[in-house]
């Protein structure tokens, strides 16, 4: 397994590129999901108050 992930002398640059990508995409996913859940809950509350 360690052989699979073994990289040459530029490993730091490669891992940094993958790390930044995972972080950026991860933050985007979390923020999208969180604002969707909040908007859904807010609308449900308003509709409950309206009925």
């Amino acid at each position, binding site marked *: 397994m360690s052989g*699979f*992930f073994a*990289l*040459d*002398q*530029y*490993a730091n*640059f*490669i891992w*940094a*590129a*993958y790390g*930044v*990508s995972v972080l*950026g*995409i991860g*933050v*985007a*996913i979390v923020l*999208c*999901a969180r*604002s*969707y859940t909040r*908007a*859904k809950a*807010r*609308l449900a509350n*308003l*509709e409950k*108050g*309206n009925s």
Partner: protein
Amino acid sequence: MLRYANPKRFMDLSGPALPWLGAAAAIFLGAGLYLGFAAPPDYQQGDTVKIMFVHVPAAWVAMMTYGLMAVSAAVGLIYRHPLADVAAKAAAPLGAVFTALALITGSLWGKPMWGAWWVWDGRLTSFLILLLIYLGYIALWNAIEDETRAARATAILALVGAVNLPIIEFSVRWWTTLHQGESILRPGGPSISAVFLWPLFAMALGYTLLFFTLWIVRIRTEILERRARSLMLGLS
């Protein structure tokens, strides 16, 4: 087609599609990562070729997103279609994220290969301008309170900014540049080996599916928020 693209119909159709899109994105990203790490080192770049598997898909999605945003903005401007405005607004932050990722991963490739984090060449500079246009578009949406006026102003900005897309695409042909020329979509077929092409395709498809998943989530969020706002106005 526009007749069917109303917010209610969009909510009904997109809900069941979301888990499938998300799952397909995860499968292609997983396959791309596996194939990417299994690929041998490039004879010139060594293992830094693996950066290409996250850099190129991010750049591709950043440009595709801008194209979709500009088309949505044009439809919103011409037909006054509410879903088109929402779609354009929802795409911008995602486009900004993918553009920033393309710039950062490109820089992390450039340092070991070119000896510099950044060079002011045509491709890099036009890509930086793309990020600035995305940020300007988001700022303009937030600066104008009235949604109709905001949609119109940002649509004009998005359409003017679309001029940058062909500049990005053809910059490597028009100017002498450090950035390599087209190696995939070029006359005569791809110039890179299949061992690198397959992981690149898998990652590009994974990034594209992920973008569509997040775009749909953001459009749904905006529709729900607008419904909530109109309910609030009705209550007050």
